[in-house]
Structure formats: C-alpha cells, structure tokens
C-alpha cells in the first residue's frame, strides 16, 4: 500500500516505474507469443446499453449481462448475485494483470540497469 511510491522517493528511483507513465518497454519483449487483449463487448452494444464511459473496459461484457439481469429480474435483486460476482472477479483479474504489468516493468528496468552496469564495468575494465 504505497510501497511503490515510497520506493520512488527513498529507494532507487531508476528501477521503480512511474505509475503514470506505464509502459515504457515494448509489450512483446521477452514474450514472443503475446497477443493484444480483445474486448468481448462491441462498441455498439455498449453505446446502446448506455454504459458509462469509465466502465467500458475489458470486463464490460459481464456488466452488460448484469444490467440485463437487473432489468429482467426486477424487483428481485438476489437473482443476479452470480453475474455480479462474475463481473467483480473479472475486475479483480484485470487489476492483478495490471499489477503484473507493473512488476514486469520494474524487472525490465532492473535488467536495464544491470546491463548498463555490466557495460560500464566492461568499458572501464578494458
């Protein structure tokens, strides 16, 4: 909780990524089979459902199902608990993916620093 901010001020700022400037490395560096994420819900579907702009993310298809269930199951709210859990779980996995991206960025910065130090050592050693 805020450790990454403390590390930027007190620790080594060079190897700590800036949360507002992610990502700085190419996304497929070291991961050749990586594919770009695809949104399941289409833009027209989201526009027709009038989903708020902030919530049109990679979990929006769960939200659409949830909104449909709320509309159909009114006034009984407990029928949509499973879909709500699915949406929340998707948001959780999204957050974990973002944290993993942050960690990847940090390790790549550390690797970059190590490579630079090795170059400097080789240049001064010679």
């Amino acid at each position, binding site marked *: *909780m*805020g450790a990454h901010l403390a590390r930027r001020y007190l620790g080594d700022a060079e190897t700590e990524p800036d*949360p507002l400037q992610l990502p700085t490395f190419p996304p497929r560096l070291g991961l050749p089979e990586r594919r770009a994420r695809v949104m399941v819900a289409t833009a027209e579907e989201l526009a027709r459902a*009038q989903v*708020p702009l*902030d*919530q049109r*993310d990679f979990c929006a298809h769960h*939200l659409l199902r*949830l*909104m449909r269930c*709320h*509309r159909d199951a*009114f*006034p009984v*709210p*407990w029928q949509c608990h499973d879909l709500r859990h699915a949406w*929340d779980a998707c*948001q*959780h996995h999204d*957050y*974990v993916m973002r944290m993993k991206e942050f960690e990847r960025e940090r390790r790549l910065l550390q690797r970059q620093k190590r490579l630079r130090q090795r170059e400097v050592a080789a240049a001064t050693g010679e």
Partner: protein
Amino acid sequence: LDTTLLSSSLLLTLSTLLIPVFTQLLPKTLKSPTATITSATKTAFLISLIPTTLFIHSGTEHIISCWEWKPIMNFKIPISLKLDLYSVLFIPTALFVTWSILQFASWYMASDPHITKFFLYLLMFLIAMLLLTIANNMFLLFIGWEGVGIMSFLLIGWWHGRAEANTAALQAIMYNRIGDIGLMLSMAWLASSLNTWELQQTSPATHLPTLPTLGLLLAAAGKSAQFGLHPWLPAAMEGPTPVSALLHSSTMVVAGIFLLIRTHPMFANNQLTLTICLCLGALSTLFAATCALTQNDIKKIIAFSTSSQLGLMMVTIGLSLPQLAFFHILTHAFFKAMLFLCSGSIIHNLNGEQDIRKMGNLQKTLPTTTSCLTIGNLALMGTPFLAGFYSKDLIIESLNTSYLNTWALLITLLATSFTATYSLRMTLLTQTGFTRTPPTTPINENNPAVINPITRLAAGSIMIGLLITSFILPVKTPPMTMPTLTKLAAITVTALGLILALELSNLTHAMTSPKRNHASTFSISLGYFNPLTHRLSSTSLLISGQKIATHLIDLSWYKKLGPEGLAHLQLSMAKTSTTLHTGLIKAYLGSFALSILVTTLLTQTP
C-alpha cells in the same frame, strides 16, 4: 405510458405536499392541521415510490422538462426540472424522514401554542428542499437554496424570546451568505461566459476555468458547514429538536454537497478543485470529530457528528465519486435523523435535560429509544452490513486505493476512529452507568407518536444500504482488489477508537479530577475558532469604521484640510501681519508724502 405515469405520479406527490399550505388560507379551520400535514407527507412518500420504482426499472438516464413562466413581459423564470437518479432517490428519502419527524413533532411540540405554524414552516422548508433537488436551472436551484436558508433562520429562531436562539439564527444566515457569494459568482460567470444557467449546458467538453468551480466550492462550504464556515451548525442546535433532525442533519446541510454532485461534470477535470475538496473535507471531518470528543450536550455531539460526516462527503467528491457521496447522503439521512429523534425523546422525557453528564442508566427506563440510539450509533460507525457500512466503508476503501494525498487519507482514518470514540462516549454516558438524573422525571415513551417514527427510521437505518446497493449499479467501478489490511482499515480504526473510548471511560472512573492538557482545551473550546473569527472580524471592522468616521472624515477633511484648515491658514497669516498695524495716521501721511516726493524727484529728468 411509463413516462406519463412517472411524471403524473411525481406531480401528484408534489401537489399533495402543497395542499396543506393552501388549505390554511381558507377561512374554516380543519379539525387537526398537524395530523393533516403529517398524513399529507406520508401520502406523498407512498406516492413518490411509484416514480422511483418506474425510473429504476426502466433504466432511464434522466428526464428533463423545460418550461418558462413569464409573469410579465420581460421577466421569465425558467422552470426546468431534472429527474435523474439523484432527485428520484432523494425525494422518497426526504419524504420518509420528514414524515417520521412530523409525527414525532406532534408529540414534542404538543405544548407549543403555534404548533400549526411550526408544521407549516417545516412543510415549506421541505418544498424548498425538493425544489432545490429537482432544479435543472441554477436560478431555480438558487430559489430553493435561499428558501431553505430562510426557513432555517425562522426555525432556528423559533423560540425567539431566547437571545441565544436569535444569535444562532443570525449566525446561520451570515455564514450561509458568505457561501452565497460563491454561488452568485459562479452563476454570474456562467451567465456571462456560457450564456446559460441550465446544468446540461454548463459542462462543456473543454476545460472550464477554476474561478466558477471555486465559487461552487465556497457555496458548498458555507451551506454544508465545512471548516472555516462551520460555527453555525453547532449553534443551530438552539432550535427545537425536530428542526435539528430535519434541517441540520438530513436535508438542508446536504444541499451544498448536492450542489457539488449536480455540478460535478463542471470540475471533474479540474485537479485543483478536486484537491481542495479533498483537503477541505478531510480537515472538516477531523476538526468536527475532535470537537465532538469533549462535548457534554447530546445535541451538540450529534451536530458535530453531522459536520464530520459532511466532511467525509466532501472527501468523496474530491475522489471524483459523486454517486458514492450521494449514497452516503441517503444512508446518513436515516441514521442521523433517528439519532436526533432519540435525543429529542430523551430530552423531553428528562424534562429538558440535555447534558449527558446528568443522564445515565436510561436503558432501563427508555428501552426502545436507547436501543434505537445504539443502532444509530452502530450505523454511524460503519458496522458491517448496517446502512452506514455500504457507503462509508466503500468511501474508505476507495480512499485507500486511490493515487492521492496521503495526509487527507490519514486524517480521514483518524476522524473515523474519533467517530467511534464519541459515539461510544455518548452511548455509555446516557444509557449505562448510574442514574444521574433527578428522581422525579416524567419518563414515559409509551406513545406511538414517539415510538413509531424512531423504529421506522431504525428499520430504514438497517435496511437502506442493502436496498440501494441491490437495485442501483455503481457508475464508477468500485475497487475489488486490495491488501487485507487495506480492506480492514475502516473497521480496524473504528475498533481502535472503541477500545480507546472504553479505556478512557475506565480512566474517568478511577481519576478524581479531570485532566486538563492542551489537546482537551483545544477540543473543549472548539479549536478557539469562534472567538478568534467572530471577535477579530467584527472589532477590526468596527475600528476601521470608527477611524474612517472620526479620523478621516471629521479630523482630516473638516479640520485639517477643509473649512477649519482654511480658516486656520488665514488666521496665521493675519496674526503675522497684525503687528504692522500701529494706527498712527501722521506716520502713514508722512510716509505717503515722503514716497511721493522721492518718486517726483527721481522721475524728473533734466
């Protein structure tokens, strides 16, 4: 069909409220005006559930109706009403709370000779508040804004024979007026730059300058008693308890926060305004919670608690979560109104005693009231799965997981623990311990006019959080992932506050004299704010006025520079030349003859 049904039922709700106002103008008297007004509010509440249900079920974004009323040729009042989630949820909540308060007031103010006027004032306040809520135009909002301010003045000063009540009413007007400067500033800016007062036209896609947003912030700070403009809220406890319950806990004081929620798109991109909201809210919540720790008047404790929760709502606005702030307004209305009604029941049953040091062991004599007081305090503290939990815990979680000011975060957590402390202190001193009340008190809570409103609001305090979260989806995704300590932060600090309160109350049993240190003196004297600001500002104004009147005008313009100064100048010149006036005619003639002779001789040139 849906829209017609919605609009017609809403119209019916509002007209049901207006009926008692207009029937009072008729010559014949009704059999019981107070009962009529209470039942009108109850009917309006039941009818208002129809548009709310229709709105939520149909998934409407908002319904705006634009109309102009032209009394004379060149003057038009824009009656443009906006029904969105906020107004459609606020109306039944306000009506439910008002119904309970009116029913309670029929018992509390039963001995008052002008009880009908009291009820009509409350009704007029409610109408002004609902007007403020459904206004889409800043002008209409301003009418509602000023309307609630005026009714607040009249109701705080209800017992106008009491000097403190008059002072408190005037204080409320003064502080609200300072806030109104901000509102008028932003209205003037909107009219001159954007040429509109309609809310949907005031949030352009481009970046809005900071000045109008700061004006709105000042207006909210004045109305919602943020730090700097807060002294009127504890002073407003001079009014009767139903007034405190309706105005100064549930409805009027949230008008400022409601304004910010309505105009949130205007400053959602303005980081400066959001940061000021956050920091001002955090400061207000901590300051009010600190002041509440050492209060001995039960109503003042609840008033400072209100001020603290308003600061929390301002923090939520600063986090860019207007829907969550509105959710907190709704849940807060229920348990705060109930806390005030319980305190009113206790006060009346103890024959006017408001000091908690003179109450004790009321659990045995007022079981229902004290149980509901406990439920209200638990809801206020954010006990899991009561009403306050759903809004307050979400706010604290969002605060912990946001990328923002750590100071505001720590201050808010500290204020949350203080909330637990003063709530437990109030509960312990009123309900438990030895009986410190006089032995002959008219304690009797077996009156449906007392019990029904309180238990109704208690049921609301328990259920409303669950109800709202079940039916309304959040428009900003709530944070789902955080470390365990962060998730439990709110309940941990609350528990720490409770333990601290228990420890302190144990200490007070053992100690003989109260400890006086700087912190307690700060808390007891409300941060020295009242004497500092009230005396400094008025004395400086009066002294400068005196200086202008006497030194500038009287002394400088009249004496030194004006007529007296001119006369003085003439007089000094006359005094120097007066010695030359000897009065000897022969000497003057001789000097004339001599000068003529010399001139003739000199001018004669041979």
